[in-house]
């Protein structure tokens, strides 16, 4: 790596990296360590970046992966959870960063219960109509309605649009909700430390 690359990348994207890390919940020394670690990951991967995607997207993905790797390595760094509804009000994605992607730290009993919920969810998904199942799966991956509609169109459903996806997803949630309720999913569920 030459210094020019470092200087120009740092000048242009350090605010994004820092803001992402702050939003992941890391503060003070942890956040600063994570910041330096993220830049190490960015420059380690830089030779393989070909410029097809926007560099901000590429950097954002690396920072996110670095955060999650670190949280997984050392659970005590897992950030405190914010109020998901407050995040929504600010237009943020409440489960892009941990804790959404970090399996909660549960006792063995709670872990078993969580596995049971997953088995139930998978079984319930199997009972949905194929197209609705595809919509729920893509939504579970994290796509938004527009992107899911695009994937549906590519699979042959030319009439799929955002409203169609929203409606189907709502119906699927209604179908799945009793299972989730039965498994003990409610607003107070949180077995994280």
């Amino acid at each position, binding site marked *: 790596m030459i*210094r*020019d690359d*470092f*200087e*120009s990348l*740092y*000048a*242009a994207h*350090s*605010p*994004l990296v*820092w803001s*992402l890390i702050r*939003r992941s919940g890391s503060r003070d020394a942890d956040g*600063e360590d994570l*910041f*330096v670690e993220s830049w*190490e990951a960015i420059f380690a991967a830089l030779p393989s970046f*070909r410029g*097809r*995607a*926007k560099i*901000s*997207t590429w950097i954002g*993905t690396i920072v*996110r992966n670095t955060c999650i790797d670190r949280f997984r390595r050392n659970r005590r760094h897992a950030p405190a959870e914010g109020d*998901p*509804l407050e995040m*929504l009000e*600010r237009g943020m*994605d*409440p*489960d*892009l960063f941990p804790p*959404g*992607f970090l399996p909660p730290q549960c006792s063995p009993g709670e872990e078993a219960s969580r596995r049971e*919920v*997953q088995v139930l*969810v*998978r079984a319930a998904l199997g009972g949905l109509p194929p197209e609705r199942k*595809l919509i*729920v799966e*893509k939504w579970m*991956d*994290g*796509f*938004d309605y527009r*992107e899911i509609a695009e*994937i549906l169109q*590519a*699979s042959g459903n030319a009439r799929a649009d955002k409203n169609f996806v*929203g409606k189907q*997803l709502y119906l699927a*949630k209604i179908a799945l*909700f009793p299972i*989730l309720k039965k498994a003990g*999913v*409610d*607003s107070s*569920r949180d077995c994280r430390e």
Partner: protein
Amino acid sequence: MIKRCPTLEEISRYVDGELPPEAAREVADHLRDCPACRQRASELVSARRTLRESSVESSPPSMSPGCPDEESLLAYADISLCPAERRKIAAHLVSCARCSRLAAIASRSARFGVALAGEGLENPPPALYARTRERFFPQRPSPLGEIVAVLAELWRDFNRGAAYRMRGPGFQPVVSEPTAEFDISYAECRPLPAASREKTARSAPPPRKAVPPAPRGRVWDYPIPKGKIEVELKAAAPDAASLKIRLTGADGKPLPGVTVDLETPGRAAQTRRTGRTGRLEFRDLPPASYRLVFRLTPSRSLVVVLQ
């Protein structure tokens, strides 16, 4: 605030961040004041998290021969692919759990970045710059420590846009001979080879009017970290000179589009931009002290002082 409670479908769309901004604001206002709806929304958020956690653990990613590379998935996520390529990848995502997961994460990262930018990005503490830089360019003692220190100082000067200077035993300034009333006083100036000088002199425009015999022009070249600046000072008359500048990159190709400011006390600065050939010219310069500011990148400039 909405008069009626929103439907469960509206709340579902709100929780998924899929309502238009105006409608989302109304629902948010309503949820603040309606405990029953807030409870429903919280349940939907919890259900969403449970479902997404199930997704993470239910299908371990494995790459197949038909999978696009990861950067293509990133490009899909930030909508920088052409429509045909987008359709191709979208069709692949129908059946590939691995790529679907990666593209979804990239897509959410891109949206998250846009939302953050909308809120205003936060600059990292200044101390982190030095700490990060130290990881990549550690300062090691060496027999050439003095030279390294001088180079480091040079680098800082480049970035600060400070007046250029060099110190240290290995770098004795090359003092140029006075040419008319001009003297380029910065270090490391050295004449180009004779052939190059003659070539440049031939290409110089003739004097516009009869003037007393003028001193010969001079040509220096100055190495920059990724290229070269050539400065040709030509005095057409004792009180009017022209300054020709040519910028080339490390590969020898011209550097077009670089902004150069010529500043002098008591006068407005003149600004030129290098053309396709990497050249520019300032004309009719009276005797004075000048500063040449090369704006190589938005974050980097090089200042050369001419006295």
